[in-house]
């Protein structure tokens, strides 16, 4: 079990393709950042097709979590430090 799974988390969605996860986060989170594959979040390198959309809502972080045999989950974790850190490591997507 990875360290992310050991953290208190909520599963917002599962069974979506990675692209659908990107769209879900873009539509539901007030603030969205793009990070690149391998960027560490909660101590783990995040997996996915770049750019990886990660959202924040205050102190909550919403992100895709890929497991080889179970697909992609969208997890929500409350963490003020990690939410603040995303503003320094992520890039805000250009508005279409």
């Amino acid at each position: 079990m990875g360290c992310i799974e050991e953290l208190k988390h909520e599963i917002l969605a599962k069974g979506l393709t990675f692209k659908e996860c990107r769209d879900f986060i873009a539509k539901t989170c007030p603030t969205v950042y793009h990070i690149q594959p391998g960027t560490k979040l909660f101590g783990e390198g995040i997996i996915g097709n770049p750019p990886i959309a990660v959202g924040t809502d205050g102190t909550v972080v919403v992100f895709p979590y890929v497991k080889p045999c179970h697909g992609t989950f969208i997890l929500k974790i409350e963490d003020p430090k990690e939410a603040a850190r995303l503003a320094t490591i992520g890039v805000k997507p250009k508005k279409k």
Partner: protein
Amino acid sequence: MTETTDKKALIVLGCPEVPVQNALAVYTAYQLKSSGYSFLIAGNPAVMKLLMTSDPERHYIGAMTSLEKAVEDISSGNDNVDLCIAFAHSDAGISYAATMKYLLPSARFITIVFGREAESISHLIEYEGEQIVEVAVHNPMQLRKKMSEVLGWVVSKS
């Protein structure tokens, strides 16, 4: 040994639920070893147990690591490869392959897409690189043939 001695390869394996993956992973390891590559196999714990059961004395499979450790080592610049062969039969497999492709921009990158939904899964690929797509589930022979053609491997008749 051939001119490829000193070159490094990475084999990335997805969920092992489709039978051809394990057989093709051992075959790929055999071909890479025969071609003089040093290589690392990355997969989840079930993948590693299947491979160790298939090749208990490690005549072919060599070093193995978890997907997480492989991503961490490559991200931190501790590992680099000339050739990456990524097996994927699901959206999650494509996500892992895409991650490796991003982290290994200068490697020759080949994605092997297989399983019943190979065609539709291949359309999820958003990155550049070679693709071998085959609806292979139980029978590895057609995919083995395609891989051997693309990678220039000598094929035995058995």
